[in-house]
């Protein structure tokens, strides 16, 4: 038959799907649009929007100090979001980063407090390893419940988050409470366990490189490694995965474990670089904010880092709007909501910006994420 003899019809190097610059900039445009609408609301509240936004911008980027703060917050947000990304790619709709973050923070503190004095070079990674293990275990609870018993992960992770935070409450009030205080925190962890600061007079710490490394590793895992490929196939089409001989349950669990490890690592970084002890309120909802970050980042590692940076800047900057421009905190929250809506809404311009069929963007899960795939359960 002729088919076998038909010549190859493509160019030497197959063109890869690309994100044109305009699409990368789209979220930024959306943020600006949301801020414009926000300006109207701020003016309606009888405040000066220019002053408010000046405070926001200066708070996030105004000086070396404030940009360091943005980076300090970027760190846990990005790590959690990368974790969420991996889980979503495997079709596991985890809301559980919050609980895994807490467990990671707990484990890092525990290791730092209980392990005999060791040099930094050993203790710092040891704490992180402990945190990653704890995050992994907590994530695997939901993973196993899903794979073995078919328990929906949305419900189980929400429940596990509540349980984790109550567990931490119990520990910092009781067994782990700092001796001689009646406050809800543990003792300060030894200096050997601290992540070093890298810029004088700021809180910028060595952990800021972790998200970059993690993003690279996540990319390598998902797109360069066999196991990651299996996870992605499972997330995109679990029936096909099964037919291709992929161990579907194992692939999901693998991705879930990685996602838990990353959230746990985020918890360790907060402890070892920022708080230096476990206390109530360290999470600041990072685990929940990570979900829109990963989705706005199209579940692509690079874009997720960018989204995390935007969210971090907004978070840090908006704290300044309250104190510097008297913008009440409800307005700050409202503004954050507007920004998320505008960013996600701007997605609809993507097809208009490119000829839709001819060049589909690299496969993303943003439009058709299967949130509840019961077929993953064995």
């Amino acid at each position, binding site marked *: 038959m002729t088919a076998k003899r038909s010549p190859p019809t493509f160019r030497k190097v197959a063109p890869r799907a690309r994100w044109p610059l305009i699409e990368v900039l789209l979220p930024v445009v959306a943020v600006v649009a949301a801020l414009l609408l926000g300006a109207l609301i701020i003016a309606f*509240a009888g405040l000066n929007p220019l002053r408010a936004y000046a405070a926001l911008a200066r708070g996030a980027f105004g000086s070396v100090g404030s940009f360091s703060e943005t980076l300090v917050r970027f760190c846990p947000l990005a790590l959690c979001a990368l974790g969420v990304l991996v889980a979503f790619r495997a079709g596991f709709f985890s809301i559980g980063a919050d609980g895994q973050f807490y467990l990671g923070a707990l484990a890092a503190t525990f290791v730092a407090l209980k392990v005999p004095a060791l040099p930094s070079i050993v203790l710092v990674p040891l704490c992180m390893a402990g945190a990653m293990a704890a995050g992994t275990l907590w994530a695997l609870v939901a993973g196993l*419940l899903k794979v073995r*018993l*078919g*328990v*929906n992960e*949305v*419900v*189980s992770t*929400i*429940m*596990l988050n*509540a*349980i984790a935070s*109550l*567990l931490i*409450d*119990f520990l910092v*009030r*009781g067994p782990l409470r700092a001796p001689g205080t009646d406050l809800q925190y543990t003792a300060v962890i030894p200096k050997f366990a601290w992540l070093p600061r890298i810029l004088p007079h700021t809180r910028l710490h060595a952990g800021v490189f972790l998200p970059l490394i993690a993003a690279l590793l996540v990319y390598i895992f998902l797109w360069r490694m066999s196991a990651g490929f299996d996870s992605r196939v499972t997330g995109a089409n679990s029936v096909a995965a099964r037919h291709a001989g992929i161990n579907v349950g194992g692939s999901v669990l693998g991705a879930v474990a990685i996602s838990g490890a990353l959230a746990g690592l985020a918890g360790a970084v907060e402890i070892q670089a920022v708080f230096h002890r476990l206390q109530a309120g360290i999470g600041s909802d990072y685990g*929940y904010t990570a*979900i*829109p970050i990963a*989705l*706005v980042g199209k579940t692509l590692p690079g874009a997720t880092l960018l989204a995390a940076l935007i969210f971090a800047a907004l978070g840090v900057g908006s704290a300044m709007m309250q104190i510097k421009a008297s913008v*009440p*905190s*409800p*307005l*700050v*929250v*409202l*503004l*954050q*909501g*507007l*920004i*998320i*809506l505008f*960013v*996600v*809404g701007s*997605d*609809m311009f993507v097809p208009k910006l490119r000829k839709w069929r001819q060049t589909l963007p690299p496969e993303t899960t*943003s*439009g*058709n*994420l*299967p*949130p*509840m795939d*019961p077929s993953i*359960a064995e």
Partner: protein
Amino acid sequence: MLNSFALAPSIGFLAATVRLSTPLLLAASGELVTERAGVLNLSIEGMMLNGALFGFLGAYFSGSLFVGWLAGMLAGALLALLFSFFAITLRSHQVIVALGINLLALGETSFLYRKIFGLATLTPQIKPALPHPIPTLSHIPLLGPVLFDQTILTYAAFLFPPLVWIFLYKTPAGRSLRAVGENAVAADSVGVDVQCIRYLATIFGGLLAGLAGAYLSTVALNLFLENMTGGAGWIAVTIVIFGNWSPLGIALAALTFGGAEALQLRLQSSGIGVPREFIVMFPYLLTLVALSGFVKRSKSPAQLCIPFIRSFQ
């Protein structure tokens, strides 16, 4: 320990279970309809909060609870409309839209409340709603005070699951709605207006979420407090999943969760030798265990969270 279980089946416990389930069931009934149309609305929390504020404002300024409930429902529906615009018309990712709406609602309700009442120490209050005992039924021993000596919204909440069941399975509109949630392209191919049904289903969910919020501010309490829903909307969403997307299922799930909460509060005050944090965990643990126990097929609507595009099959 024994002591505390002995008091579990008491009237007070059962009545508390019913009361605690009421807002959950109202919101979950609405969310069930929304999800059966293929729309995953995770912004129930925000819609409840909006309903709580406007329910309170309506009742406060008009002096009538009914006006308040109406206002609460409209406020929930309004947010649902916004959600629909993004999630259905623009086809943005439903989960992100919902998270955005939740933040928006949290900010907006607090902002408006402060704008209207300032940062006063004395929270404005309305006349609380009173129970409407049903004449003869409320005198039945045990059952009477538990089931028939409640407020109107509680009766309504427990009427919704059967009504939703009738709607879904016995009416043309319900059939179309289920079809849209299971296979939107097929529904579209026989002339069912997929987008319109999804809009309506989401708005219905918003109406009930708003009513659930208004229940909190006008019936359970008689005032509005910032962020007063405190996560109830999320519980409502999990109840729909826990109830396996069936009307009977969500009624049972809501009662289970409400019952666990009621029991938790009783276990605490009777002091058993378990750290408090673990008692407070009880409802969450119970939900996990119950879910793992019912190893049954998930009946998630096939196209939940998948936007509809006609030309792209």
